[in-house]
Protein backbone atom coordinates (compact mmCIF):
# COMPACT_ATOMS: atom_id res chain seq x y z
CA UNK A 1 0.00 0.00 0.00
CA UNK A 2 1.00 3.57 -0.59
CA UNK A 3 -0.03 6.88 0.83
CA UNK A 4 -0.63 9.75 -1.55
CA UNK A 5 -0.49 13.06 0.27
CA UNK A 6 -1.32 16.13 -1.71
CA UNK A 7 -1.32 19.78 -0.79
CA UNK A 8 -3.90 21.64 -2.87
CA UNK A 9 -5.45 25.03 -3.36
CA UNK A 10 -8.59 25.10 -1.19
CA UNK A 11 -10.76 25.71 -4.24
CA UNK A 12 -9.55 22.53 -5.93
CA UNK A 13 -10.65 20.06 -3.29
CA UNK A 14 -14.00 19.47 -4.89
CA UNK A 15 -12.54 18.82 -8.33
CA UNK A 16 -9.98 16.38 -7.00
CA UNK A 17 -12.57 14.64 -4.92
CA UNK A 18 -14.85 14.24 -7.90
CA UNK A 19 -12.10 12.78 -10.07
CA UNK A 20 -11.09 10.35 -7.37
CA UNK A 21 -14.69 9.35 -6.93
CA UNK A 22 -15.06 8.62 -10.63
CA UNK A 23 -11.94 6.47 -10.42
CA UNK A 24 -13.56 4.52 -7.62
CA UNK A 25 -11.71 5.94 -4.65
CA UNK A 26 -14.08 6.91 -1.90
CA UNK A 27 -11.88 7.00 1.20
CA UNK A 28 -9.82 10.04 2.03
CA UNK A 29 -8.83 12.24 4.90
CA UNK A 30 -8.65 16.02 4.58
CA UNK A 31 -6.78 18.52 6.76
CA UNK A 32 -6.65 22.28 6.72
CA UNK A 33 -3.06 23.47 6.57
CA UNK A 34 -1.07 26.56 5.67
CA UNK A 35 1.99 26.45 3.57
CA UNK A 36 4.68 28.41 1.83
CA UNK A 37 6.89 27.83 -1.16
CA UNK A 38 7.35 29.71 -4.38
CA UNK A 39 3.91 31.30 -4.29
CA UNK A 40 3.95 34.95 -3.27
CA UNK A 41 2.05 35.81 -0.11
CA UNK A 42 -0.31 38.71 0.31
CA UNK A 43 -0.34 41.99 2.14
CA UNK A 44 -2.45 42.93 5.11
CA UNK A 45 -2.92 46.38 6.55
CA UNK A 46 -3.24 47.12 10.25
CA UNK A 47 -3.64 50.67 11.47
CA UNK A 48 -1.42 52.13 8.83
CA UNK A 49 1.24 49.43 8.79
CA UNK A 50 1.51 46.78 6.09
CA UNK A 51 2.48 43.18 6.63
CA UNK A 52 3.47 40.45 4.24
CA UNK A 53 1.85 37.14 4.93
CA UNK A 54 3.55 34.17 3.39
CA UNK A 55 1.80 31.22 4.94
CA UNK A 56 -1.13 30.63 2.67
CA UNK A 57 -4.19 28.46 3.36
CA UNK A 58 -4.02 25.08 1.64
CA UNK A 59 -5.82 21.77 1.85
CA UNK A 60 -4.00 18.52 2.52
CA UNK A 61 -5.62 15.35 1.20
CA UNK A 62 -4.37 11.94 2.28
CA UNK A 63 -5.40 8.73 0.56
CA UNK A 64 -4.03 5.31 1.13
CA UNK A 65 -4.32 3.18 -1.99
CA UNK A 66 -3.14 -0.04 -3.54
CA UNK A 67 0.35 0.16 -5.01
CA UNK A 68 -0.88 -0.62 -8.51
CA UNK A 69 -3.08 2.47 -8.60
CA UNK A 70 -0.40 4.95 -7.65
CA UNK A 71 0.57 6.22 -11.08
CA UNK A 72 -2.96 6.60 -12.29
CA UNK A 73 -4.04 8.41 -9.16
CA UNK A 74 -1.10 10.77 -9.16
CA UNK A 75 -1.83 11.60 -12.73
CA UNK A 76 -5.47 12.18 -12.09
CA UNK A 77 -4.85 14.45 -9.10
CA UNK A 78 -2.24 16.42 -11.01
CA UNK A 79 -4.63 17.11 -13.78
CA UNK A 80 -7.56 18.00 -11.59
CA UNK A 81 -5.57 20.34 -9.36
CA UNK A 82 -3.52 22.16 -11.94
CA UNK A 83 -4.04 25.84 -12.74
CA UNK A 84 -0.47 26.45 -13.90
CA UNK A 85 -0.03 29.30 -11.44
CA UNK A 86 2.52 29.01 -8.63
CA UNK A 87 0.85 27.62 -5.58
CA UNK A 88 -0.79 24.63 -7.24
CA UNK A 89 0.81 22.41 -4.63
CA UNK A 90 2.64 19.13 -4.35
CA UNK A 91 1.98 15.43 -4.29
CA UNK A 92 4.12 13.32 -1.96
CA UNK A 93 4.18 9.55 -2.04
CA UNK A 94 5.00 7.44 1.00
CA UNK A 95 5.29 3.74 1.70
CA UNK A 96 2.69 2.25 4.02
CA UNK A 97 3.46 -0.81 6.07
CA UNK A 98 -0.05 -1.86 6.79
CA UNK A 99 -3.62 -0.71 7.30
CA UNK A 100 -6.47 -1.81 9.53
CA UNK A 101 -10.20 -1.12 9.27
CA UNK A 102 -11.19 -0.55 12.87
CA UNK A 103 -14.81 -1.58 12.44
CA UNK A 104 -14.03 -5.08 11.12
CA UNK A 105 -10.40 -5.65 11.92
CA UNK A 106 -9.66 -6.30 8.23
CA UNK A 107 -6.09 -5.50 7.28
CA UNK A 108 -4.10 -4.78 4.14
CA UNK A 109 -5.78 -3.92 0.87
CA UNK A 110 -9.12 -5.04 2.25
CA UNK A 111 -8.96 -2.30 4.81
CA UNK A 112 -8.77 0.69 2.51
Amino acid at each position, binding site marked *: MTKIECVLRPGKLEDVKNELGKFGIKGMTVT*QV*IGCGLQKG*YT*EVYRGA*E*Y*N*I*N*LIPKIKVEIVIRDEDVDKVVNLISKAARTEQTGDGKIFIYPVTSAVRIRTGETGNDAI
Partner: protein
Amino acid sequence: MKKSLIGPVLLLALMFLLLGPGVAGASQAAADTGDTAFIIISSALVLIMTPGLALFYGGMVRRKNVLSILMQCFIIMCLVSVQWVLFGYSLAFGPDLGHITGSLKWAGLSGVGQSPFPGYSATIPHQVFMLFQLMFAIITAALITGSFAERMRFPVFLVFVLLWTTFVYDPLAHWVWGIGGWLRNLGALDFAGGTVVHISSGVSGLIAALILGRRKGYGSGPILPHYLPMTVLGAALLWFGWFGFNAGSALAANGLAASAFMTTNTAAAMAALSWVFAEWLHHGKPTMLGAVSGGVAGLVAITPASGFVGPVSALVIGLVAGIICYLAVSVVKARFGYDDSLDVFGVHGVGGTWGALATGLFASTAVNPAGANGLFYGNPSQLLIQLAGVLTTWVFAAVLTAVILKAISLVTQLRVSEEDEDQGLDLSQHGEDGFTDLVVGVPLTQSFSFTEESAPVLKESSAGVQH
Protein backbone atom coordinates in the same frame (compact mmCIF):
# COMPACT_ATOMS: atom_id res chain seq x y z
CA MET B 1 -6.45 50.85 -6.88
CA LYS B 2 -5.30 54.42 -6.21
CA LYS B 3 -6.76 55.53 -9.48
CA SER B 4 -10.12 54.31 -8.40
CA LEU B 5 -10.02 56.85 -5.60
CA ILE B 6 -10.48 59.77 -7.90
CA GLY B 7 -14.18 59.18 -8.34
CA PRO B 8 -15.13 59.09 -4.69
CA VAL B 9 -12.84 61.96 -3.79
CA LEU B 10 -14.35 64.19 -6.42
CA LEU B 11 -17.82 63.35 -5.21
CA LEU B 12 -16.82 64.17 -1.67
CA ALA B 13 -15.39 67.45 -2.79
CA LEU B 14 -18.60 68.23 -4.63
CA MET B 15 -20.54 67.51 -1.51
CA PHE B 16 -18.50 70.06 0.39
CA LEU B 17 -19.16 72.73 -2.17
CA LEU B 18 -22.78 72.61 -1.14
CA LEU B 19 -21.84 73.46 2.42
CA GLY B 20 -23.84 76.39 3.75
CA PRO B 21 -23.30 77.97 7.14
CA GLY B 22 -25.79 75.57 8.64
CA VAL B 23 -26.00 76.81 12.20
CA ALA B 24 -29.41 75.89 13.44
CA GLY B 25 -31.33 78.42 15.47
CA ALA B 26 -31.93 77.78 19.15
CA SER B 27 -35.24 76.53 20.43
CA GLN B 28 -38.16 78.91 20.07
CA ALA B 29 -41.37 76.91 20.22
CA ALA B 30 -41.42 74.23 22.89
CA ALA B 31 -41.60 70.57 21.93
CA ASP B 32 -43.15 67.85 24.06
CA THR B 33 -40.44 66.22 26.16
CA GLY B 34 -42.06 62.81 26.11
CA ASP B 35 -42.47 62.74 22.36
CA THR B 36 -38.98 64.13 21.89
CA ALA B 37 -37.46 61.54 24.19
CA PHE B 38 -39.33 58.85 22.32
CA ILE B 39 -38.23 59.87 18.85
CA ILE B 40 -34.64 60.55 19.85
CA ILE B 41 -34.39 57.07 21.31
CA SER B 42 -36.28 55.62 18.37
CA SER B 43 -33.70 57.17 16.08
CA ALA B 44 -30.96 55.44 18.03
CA LEU B 45 -32.91 52.19 17.75
CA VAL B 46 -33.21 52.55 14.00
CA LEU B 47 -29.53 53.35 13.75
CA ILE B 48 -28.58 50.11 15.49
CA MET B 49 -30.58 48.25 12.84
CA THR B 50 -27.85 48.87 10.29
CA PRO B 51 -25.09 47.16 12.26
CA GLY B 52 -27.74 44.57 13.06
CA LEU B 53 -28.28 44.07 9.37
CA ALA B 54 -24.54 43.94 8.82
CA LEU B 55 -24.31 41.05 11.26
CA PHE B 56 -27.42 39.41 9.86
CA TYR B 57 -25.83 39.49 6.44
CA GLY B 58 -22.30 38.93 7.73
CA GLY B 59 -23.13 35.55 9.20
CA MET B 60 -24.59 34.42 5.90
CA VAL B 61 -21.66 35.10 3.62
CA ARG B 62 -18.56 33.00 3.41
CA ARG B 63 -15.77 33.57 5.88
CA LYS B 64 -13.60 35.30 3.35
CA ASN B 65 -16.19 37.99 2.69
CA VAL B 66 -17.47 38.78 6.14
CA LEU B 67 -15.58 42.03 6.54
CA SER B 68 -16.58 43.24 3.12
CA ILE B 69 -20.27 43.10 3.97
CA LEU B 70 -19.76 44.60 7.41
CA MET B 71 -17.72 47.34 5.78
CA GLN B 72 -20.36 48.10 3.19
CA CYS B 73 -23.08 48.49 5.81
CA PHE B 74 -20.84 50.55 8.06
CA ILE B 75 -19.71 52.86 5.29
CA ILE B 76 -23.31 53.40 4.27
CA MET B 77 -23.99 54.63 7.80
CA CYS B 78 -21.24 57.18 7.29
CA LEU B 79 -21.79 58.13 3.68
CA VAL B 80 -25.54 58.59 3.92
CA SER B 81 -25.22 60.49 7.21
CA VAL B 82 -23.01 63.05 5.52
CA GLN B 83 -25.08 63.15 2.34
CA TRP B 84 -28.26 63.66 4.36
CA VAL B 85 -26.91 66.63 6.28
CA LEU B 86 -25.45 68.20 3.16
CA PHE B 87 -28.39 67.84 0.79
CA GLY B 88 -30.23 64.54 1.14
CA TYR B 89 -32.70 65.67 3.75
CA SER B 90 -33.46 68.73 1.72
CA LEU B 91 -34.09 66.68 -1.41
CA ALA B 92 -36.42 64.35 0.41
CA PHE B 93 -38.27 66.61 2.82
CA GLY B 94 -37.39 70.15 1.78
CA PRO B 95 -39.87 72.57 0.18
CA ASP B 96 -41.59 70.78 -2.66
CA LEU B 97 -40.66 71.23 -6.31
CA GLY B 98 -43.40 69.98 -8.64
CA HIS B 99 -44.49 67.10 -6.33
CA ILE B 100 -41.37 65.25 -7.43
CA THR B 101 -38.51 66.35 -5.22
CA GLY B 102 -37.59 68.71 -2.42
CA SER B 103 -35.59 71.79 -3.21
CA LEU B 104 -32.08 72.46 -1.94
CA LYS B 105 -33.29 75.15 0.42
CA TRP B 106 -32.54 73.07 3.48
CA ALA B 107 -29.12 71.98 2.28
CA GLY B 108 -26.56 71.90 5.06
CA LEU B 109 -29.56 71.78 7.41
CA SER B 110 -30.04 75.50 7.06
CA GLY B 111 -33.38 76.26 8.58
CA VAL B 112 -33.63 72.83 10.18
CA GLY B 113 -33.55 73.89 13.77
CA GLN B 114 -34.21 72.93 17.32
CA SER B 115 -37.86 73.94 17.30
CA PRO B 116 -40.60 71.84 15.74
CA PHE B 117 -41.58 72.09 12.12
CA PRO B 118 -45.31 71.51 12.48
CA GLY B 119 -45.75 70.43 8.88
CA TYR B 120 -44.03 67.18 9.76
CA SER B 121 -44.35 66.98 13.52
CA ALA B 122 -45.62 69.62 15.87
CA THR B 123 -44.31 68.15 19.09
CA ILE B 124 -40.67 67.33 18.43
CA PRO B 125 -37.71 69.46 17.31
CA HIS B 126 -37.31 69.60 13.56
CA GLN B 127 -33.82 68.14 13.90
CA VAL B 128 -35.23 65.09 15.64
CA PHE B 129 -37.55 64.47 12.72
CA MET B 130 -34.61 64.92 10.37
CA LEU B 131 -32.48 62.44 12.34
CA PHE B 132 -35.24 59.88 12.53
CA GLN B 133 -35.64 60.06 8.76
CA LEU B 134 -31.88 59.83 8.27
CA MET B 135 -31.84 56.44 9.90
CA PHE B 136 -34.38 55.22 7.35
CA ALA B 137 -32.25 56.44 4.49
CA ILE B 138 -29.28 54.55 5.92
CA ILE B 139 -30.95 51.21 6.46
CA THR B 140 -32.61 51.27 3.05
CA ALA B 141 -29.35 51.61 1.20
CA ALA B 142 -27.78 49.00 3.46
CA LEU B 143 -30.49 46.48 2.68
CA ILE B 144 -29.47 46.37 -0.96
CA THR B 145 -25.93 45.23 -0.18
CA GLY B 146 -27.19 41.73 0.50
CA SER B 147 -28.12 41.24 -3.13
CA PHE B 148 -24.69 41.87 -4.62
CA ALA B 149 -22.73 40.57 -1.66
CA GLU B 150 -19.40 38.85 -2.30
CA ARG B 151 -18.67 40.34 -5.69
CA MET B 152 -18.88 44.14 -6.09
CA ARG B 153 -15.74 46.28 -6.19
CA PHE B 154 -15.57 48.62 -3.24
CA PRO B 155 -15.01 51.88 -5.17
CA VAL B 156 -17.94 51.03 -7.40
CA PHE B 157 -19.97 50.32 -4.33
CA LEU B 158 -19.25 53.78 -2.93
CA VAL B 159 -20.36 55.54 -6.07
CA PHE B 160 -23.42 53.34 -6.45
CA VAL B 161 -24.61 54.04 -2.94
CA LEU B 162 -24.18 57.75 -3.25
CA LEU B 163 -26.06 57.88 -6.54
CA TRP B 164 -28.75 55.46 -5.45
CA THR B 165 -29.56 57.24 -2.27
CA THR B 166 -29.61 60.59 -4.04
CA PHE B 167 -31.56 59.60 -7.13
CA VAL B 168 -33.73 56.77 -5.87
CA TYR B 169 -34.26 57.03 -2.15
CA ASP B 170 -34.53 60.78 -1.73
CA PRO B 171 -37.16 61.33 -4.44
CA LEU B 172 -39.12 58.27 -3.36
CA ALA B 173 -39.20 59.48 0.22
CA HIS B 174 -40.40 62.81 -1.05
CA TRP B 175 -43.21 61.29 -3.07
CA VAL B 176 -44.58 59.26 -0.19
CA TRP B 177 -43.80 61.31 2.92
CA GLY B 178 -42.70 64.78 1.79
CA ILE B 179 -45.20 67.65 1.93
CA GLY B 180 -46.42 67.99 -1.62
CA GLY B 181 -45.22 64.55 -2.71
CA TRP B 182 -47.53 63.09 -5.31
CA LEU B 183 -48.08 59.68 -3.72
CA ARG B 184 -48.81 61.33 -0.41
CA ASN B 185 -51.32 63.55 -2.15
CA LEU B 186 -52.85 60.50 -3.78
CA GLY B 187 -53.55 59.05 -0.33
CA ALA B 188 -51.20 56.08 -0.41
CA LEU B 189 -50.75 54.64 3.06
CA ASP B 190 -47.24 53.70 4.09
CA PHE B 191 -46.85 53.95 7.81
CA ALA B 192 -43.16 53.22 8.15
CA GLY B 193 -41.80 52.53 4.72
CA GLY B 194 -43.10 49.46 2.94
CA THR B 195 -42.64 51.04 -0.44
CA VAL B 196 -39.98 53.60 0.27
CA VAL B 197 -37.75 51.26 2.23
CA HIS B 198 -38.51 47.66 1.42
CA ILE B 199 -39.85 47.54 -2.09
CA SER B 200 -37.28 50.05 -3.27
CA SER B 201 -34.37 48.14 -1.76
CA GLY B 202 -35.72 44.72 -2.68
CA VAL B 203 -36.36 45.54 -6.32
CA SER B 204 -33.12 47.45 -6.68
CA GLY B 205 -31.34 44.48 -5.18
CA LEU B 206 -32.86 42.15 -7.73
CA ILE B 207 -31.77 44.37 -10.58
CA ALA B 208 -28.29 44.75 -9.16
CA ALA B 209 -27.98 40.98 -8.75
CA LEU B 210 -29.03 40.47 -12.35
CA ILE B 211 -26.67 43.07 -13.71
CA LEU B 212 -23.69 41.92 -11.69
CA GLY B 213 -24.30 38.30 -12.48
CA ARG B 214 -23.94 35.25 -10.32
CA ARG B 215 -21.16 34.59 -7.87
CA LYS B 216 -18.49 32.21 -9.06
CA GLY B 217 -19.56 28.71 -8.15
CA TYR B 218 -23.19 29.63 -7.60
CA GLY B 219 -25.36 26.80 -8.77
CA SER B 220 -22.62 24.22 -8.97
CA GLY B 221 -22.61 23.92 -5.20
CA PRO B 222 -24.29 25.63 -2.32
CA ILE B 223 -22.75 28.72 -0.82
CA LEU B 224 -23.45 28.38 2.85
CA PRO B 225 -23.54 30.82 5.79
CA HIS B 226 -20.22 30.78 7.59
CA TYR B 227 -21.48 31.58 11.08
CA LEU B 228 -25.18 31.50 11.87
CA PRO B 229 -24.99 32.78 15.46
CA MET B 230 -23.84 36.09 13.99
CA THR B 231 -26.95 36.10 11.82
CA VAL B 232 -29.13 35.44 14.84
CA LEU B 233 -27.58 38.30 16.76
CA GLY B 234 -28.16 40.53 13.78
CA ALA B 235 -31.77 39.49 13.53
CA ALA B 236 -32.24 40.23 17.22
CA LEU B 237 -30.87 43.73 16.78
CA LEU B 238 -33.10 44.20 13.76
CA TRP B 239 -36.19 43.14 15.68
CA PHE B 240 -35.20 45.39 18.59
CA GLY B 241 -34.51 48.38 16.37
CA TRP B 242 -37.65 47.83 14.36
CA PHE B 243 -39.70 48.99 17.33
CA GLY B 244 -38.11 52.37 16.83
CA PHE B 245 -38.74 52.09 13.11
CA ASN B 246 -42.45 51.31 13.29
CA ALA B 247 -43.61 52.61 16.67
CA GLY B 248 -41.43 55.68 16.22
CA SER B 249 -43.21 56.39 12.95
CA ALA B 250 -46.15 57.58 15.03
CA LEU B 251 -43.80 60.50 15.75
CA ALA B 252 -45.23 60.67 19.25
CA ALA B 253 -45.33 58.54 22.36
CA ASN B 254 -49.01 57.81 22.18
CA GLY B 255 -51.55 55.05 21.71
CA LEU B 256 -50.80 54.80 18.03
CA ALA B 257 -47.14 54.12 18.76
CA ALA B 258 -48.25 51.42 21.17
CA SER B 259 -50.48 49.90 18.54
CA ALA B 260 -47.71 49.95 15.95
CA PHE B 261 -45.35 48.32 18.42
CA MET B 262 -47.91 45.60 19.09
CA THR B 263 -48.62 44.84 15.44
CA THR B 264 -44.90 44.83 14.69
CA ASN B 265 -44.09 42.30 17.34
CA THR B 266 -47.11 40.18 16.53
CA ALA B 267 -46.53 40.00 12.80
CA ALA B 268 -42.83 39.23 13.23
CA ALA B 269 -43.55 36.43 15.65
CA MET B 270 -46.27 34.93 13.47
CA ALA B 271 -44.15 35.11 10.33
CA ALA B 272 -41.23 33.41 12.01
CA LEU B 273 -43.54 30.59 13.03
CA SER B 274 -45.15 30.27 9.64
CA TRP B 275 -41.79 30.25 7.81
CA VAL B 276 -40.46 27.61 10.17
CA PHE B 277 -43.53 25.42 9.79
CA ALA B 278 -43.57 25.87 6.03
CA GLU B 279 -39.95 24.81 5.88
CA TRP B 280 -40.55 21.95 8.30
CA LEU B 281 -43.35 20.56 6.18
CA HIS B 282 -41.47 21.15 2.96
CA HIS B 283 -37.99 19.98 3.95
CA GLY B 284 -38.23 18.10 7.15
CA LYS B 285 -36.41 20.42 9.52
CA PRO B 286 -37.27 23.60 11.37
CA THR B 287 -34.19 25.77 10.93
CA MET B 288 -32.69 28.65 12.83
CA LEU B 289 -32.07 30.54 9.61
CA GLY B 290 -35.69 29.97 8.71
CA ALA B 291 -36.86 31.37 12.03
CA VAL B 292 -34.86 34.57 11.77
CA SER B 293 -35.62 34.99 8.08
CA GLY B 294 -39.29 34.58 8.82
CA GLY B 295 -39.07 37.11 11.61
CA VAL B 296 -37.52 39.63 9.27
CA ALA B 297 -40.10 38.87 6.59
CA GLY B 298 -42.85 39.58 9.11
CA LEU B 299 -41.23 42.81 10.18
CA VAL B 300 -40.96 43.88 6.56
CA ALA B 301 -44.55 43.03 5.74
CA ILE B 302 -46.05 44.80 8.74
CA THR B 303 -44.00 47.94 8.21
CA PRO B 304 -46.38 49.84 5.93
CA ALA B 305 -49.41 48.55 7.81
CA SER B 306 -48.16 48.81 11.37
CA GLY B 307 -50.01 52.00 12.27
CA PHE B 308 -53.23 51.14 10.49
CA VAL B 309 -54.20 47.61 11.50
CA GLY B 310 -55.26 45.66 14.58
CA PRO B 311 -53.73 42.58 16.21
CA VAL B 312 -55.67 39.98 14.28
CA SER B 313 -54.82 41.58 10.97
CA ALA B 314 -51.21 41.66 12.08
CA LEU B 315 -51.35 37.93 12.70
CA VAL B 316 -52.70 37.30 9.23
CA ILE B 317 -50.21 39.62 7.59
CA GLY B 318 -47.36 37.84 9.39
CA LEU B 319 -48.70 34.38 8.64
CA VAL B 320 -48.86 35.06 4.93
CA ALA B 321 -45.54 36.90 4.85
CA GLY B 322 -43.67 33.95 6.34
CA ILE B 323 -45.09 31.56 3.78
CA ILE B 324 -44.75 33.61 0.62
CA CYS B 325 -41.28 34.86 1.43
CA TYR B 326 -40.22 31.28 2.14
CA LEU B 327 -41.53 30.25 -1.24
CA ALA B 328 -39.87 33.22 -2.90
CA VAL B 329 -36.42 32.35 -1.62
CA SER B 330 -36.69 28.58 -1.90
CA VAL B 331 -38.78 27.92 -4.95
CA VAL B 332 -38.92 31.06 -7.05
CA LYS B 333 -35.24 31.92 -6.79
CA ALA B 334 -34.19 28.40 -7.73
CA ARG B 335 -36.65 28.41 -10.60
CA PHE B 336 -35.26 31.59 -12.15
CA GLY B 337 -31.63 31.11 -11.26
CA TYR B 338 -30.70 34.68 -10.35
CA ASP B 339 -28.18 35.02 -7.56
CA ASP B 340 -29.66 37.46 -5.09
CA SER B 341 -26.98 36.46 -2.59
CA LEU B 342 -28.79 37.06 0.67
CA ASP B 343 -32.35 37.20 -0.61
CA VAL B 344 -32.98 40.90 -0.48
CA PHE B 345 -35.64 40.57 -3.12
CA GLY B 346 -37.21 37.44 -1.69
CA VAL B 347 -37.62 38.99 1.74
CA HIS B 348 -37.83 42.75 1.25
CA GLY B 349 -39.16 42.96 -2.28
CA VAL B 350 -41.79 40.28 -1.84
CA GLY B 351 -42.52 41.00 1.82
CA GLY B 352 -42.71 44.73 1.21
CA THR B 353 -45.08 44.30 -1.70
CA TRP B 354 -47.33 42.04 0.30
CA GLY B 355 -47.28 44.49 3.18
CA ALA B 356 -48.15 47.46 1.03
CA LEU B 357 -51.06 45.63 -0.53
CA ALA B 358 -52.14 44.18 2.80
CA THR B 359 -52.37 47.73 4.10
CA GLY B 360 -54.99 48.27 1.45
CA LEU B 361 -56.84 45.22 2.71
CA PHE B 362 -56.67 45.50 6.49
CA ALA B 363 -56.32 49.23 7.24
CA SER B 364 -58.96 50.50 9.60
CA THR B 365 -59.77 53.99 10.80
CA ALA B 366 -60.76 52.41 14.09
CA VAL B 367 -57.07 51.97 14.68
CA ASN B 368 -55.86 55.19 13.15
CA PRO B 369 -58.42 57.87 12.37
CA ALA B 370 -55.82 59.71 10.32
CA GLY B 371 -55.49 56.72 8.01
CA ALA B 372 -58.13 55.16 5.82
CA ASN B 373 -60.17 51.99 5.66
CA GLY B 374 -59.00 49.13 3.52
CA LEU B 375 -60.91 46.68 1.38
CA PHE B 376 -62.01 44.52 4.30
CA TYR B 377 -63.38 47.61 6.01
CA GLY B 378 -65.42 48.61 3.03
CA ASN B 379 -63.07 50.77 1.00
CA PRO B 380 -61.81 48.90 -2.07
CA SER B 381 -60.35 52.03 -3.64
CA GLN B 382 -57.60 52.07 -1.04
CA LEU B 383 -56.27 48.84 -2.46
CA LEU B 384 -55.99 50.43 -5.87
CA ILE B 385 -54.11 53.37 -4.46
CA GLN B 386 -51.77 51.00 -2.72
CA LEU B 387 -51.30 49.12 -5.97
CA ALA B 388 -50.42 52.34 -7.71
CA GLY B 389 -47.82 53.08 -5.08
CA VAL B 390 -46.37 49.59 -5.37
CA LEU B 391 -46.14 49.60 -9.14
CA THR B 392 -44.62 53.03 -9.30
CA THR B 393 -41.99 52.06 -6.79
CA TRP B 394 -41.17 48.84 -8.59
CA VAL B 395 -40.73 50.54 -11.91
CA PHE B 396 -38.92 53.56 -10.59
CA ALA B 397 -36.45 51.59 -8.46
CA ALA B 398 -35.79 49.03 -11.17
CA VAL B 399 -35.18 51.50 -13.94
CA LEU B 400 -33.06 53.90 -11.94
CA THR B 401 -30.92 51.14 -10.46
CA ALA B 402 -30.29 49.72 -13.90
CA VAL B 403 -29.39 53.13 -15.25
CA ILE B 404 -27.01 53.89 -12.40
CA LEU B 405 -25.20 50.56 -12.65
CA LYS B 406 -24.98 50.63 -16.41
CA ALA B 407 -23.63 54.16 -16.24
CA ILE B 408 -20.94 53.16 -13.80
CA SER B 409 -20.08 50.13 -15.88
CA LEU B 410 -19.26 52.43 -18.77
CA VAL B 411 -16.46 53.91 -16.69
CA THR B 412 -15.16 50.96 -14.74
CA GLN B 413 -15.74 47.30 -13.99
CA LEU B 414 -18.46 46.53 -11.48
CA ARG B 415 -17.21 43.17 -10.31
CA VAL B 416 -13.99 42.17 -8.67
CA SER B 417 -11.69 40.03 -10.76
CA GLU B 418 -12.06 36.27 -10.62
CA GLU B 419 -8.89 35.88 -8.54
CA ASP B 420 -10.09 38.51 -6.10
CA GLU B 421 -13.39 36.73 -5.78
CA ASP B 422 -11.57 33.48 -5.07
CA GLN B 423 -9.35 35.07 -2.49
CA GLY B 424 -12.29 36.81 -0.91
CA LEU B 425 -13.23 40.45 -0.77
CA ASP B 426 -11.82 40.92 2.71
CA LEU B 427 -8.27 40.49 1.55
CA SER B 428 -8.64 41.73 -1.98
CA GLN B 429 -10.68 44.87 -1.32
CA HIS B 430 -9.71 45.73 2.24
CA GLY B 431 -6.39 44.02 2.92
CA GLU B 432 -7.79 42.44 6.06
CA ASP B 433 -8.69 39.04 7.35
CA GLY B 434 -11.63 38.71 9.70
CA PHE B 435 -10.18 35.82 11.60
CA THR B 436 -6.44 36.23 11.87
CA ASP B 437 -5.20 33.92 14.56
CA LEU B 438 -8.65 32.48 15.07
CA VAL B 439 -9.35 30.05 12.35
CA VAL B 440 -6.21 29.04 10.62
CA GLY B 441 -5.29 28.28 14.16
CA VAL B 442 -1.61 28.93 14.05
CA PRO B 443 -0.53 32.20 15.64
CA LEU B 444 0.01 33.55 12.18
CA THR B 445 1.16 36.82 13.60
CA GLN B 446 4.44 35.07 14.14
CA SER B 447 4.74 34.56 10.44
CA PHE B 448 4.40 38.05 9.19
CA SER B 449 7.03 40.60 8.52
CA PHE B 450 6.77 44.35 8.46
CA THR B 451 7.06 46.05 5.14
CA GLU B 452 9.78 48.66 5.24
CA GLU B 453 9.17 51.86 7.14
CA SER B 454 6.08 50.75 8.92
CA ALA B 455 7.96 48.98 11.69
CA PRO B 456 7.92 50.83 14.99
CA VAL B 457 11.09 52.35 16.32
CA LEU B 458 12.20 50.43 19.37
CA LYS B 459 14.31 52.54 21.64
CA GLU B 460 14.58 50.72 24.92
CA SER B 461 15.10 53.99 26.71
CA SER B 462 11.76 55.50 25.85
CA ALA B 463 9.57 52.49 26.46
CA GLY B 464 11.71 49.94 28.23
CA VAL B 465 10.28 46.48 28.52
CA GLN B 466 10.50 45.40 32.13
CA HIS B 467 11.95 42.00 31.57
